């Protein structure tokens, strides 16, 4: 609506990530690089997906099942990417440990590893927010606003900012849970992350129904809070274990 409103929407989507960035990531340059790399990887995965689906777009916006297929394939691809990220991270960890030995510094602490996972997840979340929310916010800086037919109670920008915030949370903390699950060989954690991602993405299909976003968005936040709590429990358990 105005510059202030535009900045407001951007901060709704990215505010907590900004806080996380300033307090945790910006202090260690390596984490900034991790964040940038994971953002880039998420973007590349998105480009690959859009390349694969290009022939079928634009989809008919009245039927919902093509979108369901699209979402399922995209989430599946991204979860596969997460496993690939884990392998790359293991190799990186070995390199870092070798380097630490060489300069006679201690090896990576548990908190270090969790911070790297957090930065990776934050990168994914920020990429999501930037590409799904911020890049559409440009009209919001102008004099008017925009309403979506199916969700006419709130401006479109506000709705997309809220959804982006939920997904940022899910992405950020899923990575911590996933990396920890792979490290500990914990099956529950390993399965938890893809399931939550898929359920959350499919839940946005509820927005397809008229007035659906009134139900869809709270459900999405339930998933986000679930992820947050699970991550908190897991981190607490691991840190108090030692």
């Amino acid at each position, binding site marked *: 609506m105005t510059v202030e409103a535009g900045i407001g929407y951007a901060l709704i989507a990215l505010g907590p990530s900004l806080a996380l960035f300033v307090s945790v990531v910006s202090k260690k340059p390596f*984490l900034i690089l991790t964040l940038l790399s994971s953002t*880039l990887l998420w973007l590349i995965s998105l480009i690959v997906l859009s390349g694969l689906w290009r022939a079928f777009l634009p989809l008919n916006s009245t039927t919902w099942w093509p979108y369901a297929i699209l979402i399922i394939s995209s989430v599946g691809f991204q979860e596969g990417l997460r496993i690939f990220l884990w392998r790359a991270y293991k190799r990186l960890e070995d390199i870092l440990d070798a380097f*630490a030995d060489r300069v006679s510094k201690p090896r*990576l602490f548990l908190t270090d590893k969790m911070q790297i996972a957090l930065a990776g997840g934050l990168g994914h979340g920020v990429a999501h927010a930037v590409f799904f929310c911020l890049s559409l916010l440009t009209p919001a800086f102008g004099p008017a606003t925009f309403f979506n037919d199916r969700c006419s109670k709130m401006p479109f920008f506000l709705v997309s900012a809220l959804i982006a915030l939920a997904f940022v949370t899910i992405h950020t903390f899923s990575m911590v849970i996933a990396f920890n699950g792979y490290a500990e060989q914990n099956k529950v954690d390993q399965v938890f992350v893809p399931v939550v991602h898929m359920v959350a993405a499919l839940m946005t299909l509820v927005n397809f129904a008229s007035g659906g976003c009134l139900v869809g968005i709270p459900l999405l936040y339930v998933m986000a809070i679930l992820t947050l709590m699970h991550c908190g429990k897991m981190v607490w358990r691991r840190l108090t274990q030692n």
Partner: protein
Amino acid sequence: MAQTSRPTSVLDSLGEEIVRIVTPVSICMFLVVILVSVLDSSSSSPTSVSSMATIAYSEADSDSDWDKFVGALWNSLAFVAVVTAVTFVLVLLFYLRCTRFLKLYMGFSAFVVLGFLGGEISLFLIQDFSIPVDCVTFFVVLFNFAVVGVLAVFVSKMAIFVTQGYLVVIGMLVAYWFTMLPEWTTWVLLVAMALYDLAAVLLPMGPLRLLVELAISRDEDIPALVYEARPVTHGDSGHEGGVVQRRVWRERRNSAHDPTEVPNVNSMVNPALHGNSNNDPTSYANTTSVANGNTSPGSLSVNSVHNVTNSVAAQERLSQDSEEKSELSAPLIDHRINVGSQGHGDTIPSENLVLEGMGLGSSGAIKLGLGDFIFYSVLVGRAAMYDFMTVYACYLAIIAGLGITLMLLAFYQKALPALPVSVLLGVVFYILTRLLLEIFVVQLASNLLMF
């Protein structure tokens, strides 16, 4: 909660040099994007920018795509030809030891950029935002700004932030001017410059490589504008210690000249080598641009034999960019530019202005030529003229390219061109985003479906 004093992990300081280069590049790009989106120049006629880059063909909206592409190709060829010629002239001047002239020219170019380009852009801003300011105040402020800028890049004793800030501002101003070129010309020009950079630095008879080798063999500094990131100090010397010890370095350097290591000096220093510079006083945080003759280019630290090469390599780029600068200065001096009428005197100086490519500074810090700043920002600024999604994608691509170049730098230990990887990645991502990603994301997001 009380922290037990446990040893600092390796994660605390790793990658700091890279972040110190990525930050100013990001700031420059961000400023250019803001300028481009604020000064939306759809109203101002593109024909007002006639420069070296549009001599062969000036784009008109009614031309077909193929015509535009061919015209852009001619433009870029002309531009690259001029840049090559000017770089060779610079090599010649450097060979004839006209260093003082080159340095004076550099200062003059900085003044022209800050004063005239900066003035024009401020005028656009004042016009757009109806800022009430009178001519006299404006002139005085602008003049002071420009003079301080010239001193900042000329004199070594300025505060580091001031020098770095001015370099970023110069990069931003020049990049903004480049974005005013017609669209096809800009893109083809970017790719052409990337390829030229690759050739000029890596081919044996490339002008930049000649310049680097000349500077190394003479153990001299090339007068040029280059951004040098603050070196990562490891708690060593303070300011004074650095000054005192610099003399020692000079002597050491002369002795270091004898060993056979000199020949393989044609390399860019490995940032990791910086680890060794802990012990030596080079960690003295003097990051003033190599432009001033004080900092011995090679400002060798113990292992800085490599550094020499780097700074030289960096300087090579510099000359390259200065050429662009000259072309940029051209519109300022006379809008009815005619290639023929431009004397040599005008075209040479800009070379000194910018420097493409990377190197390692005397104190082990990474140096990046100003030309790289400029062309990265031009790419992102052009992407901003389409949409913000392309901006984010191109930004990530450029940073990735920069990271890859830095890794190659660490690996090959040679003077490397910083443009090719980033620009080519940026162009690829721009095209992919525009063709593929945009419709995908807009389809999903406008239906409020996200994953």
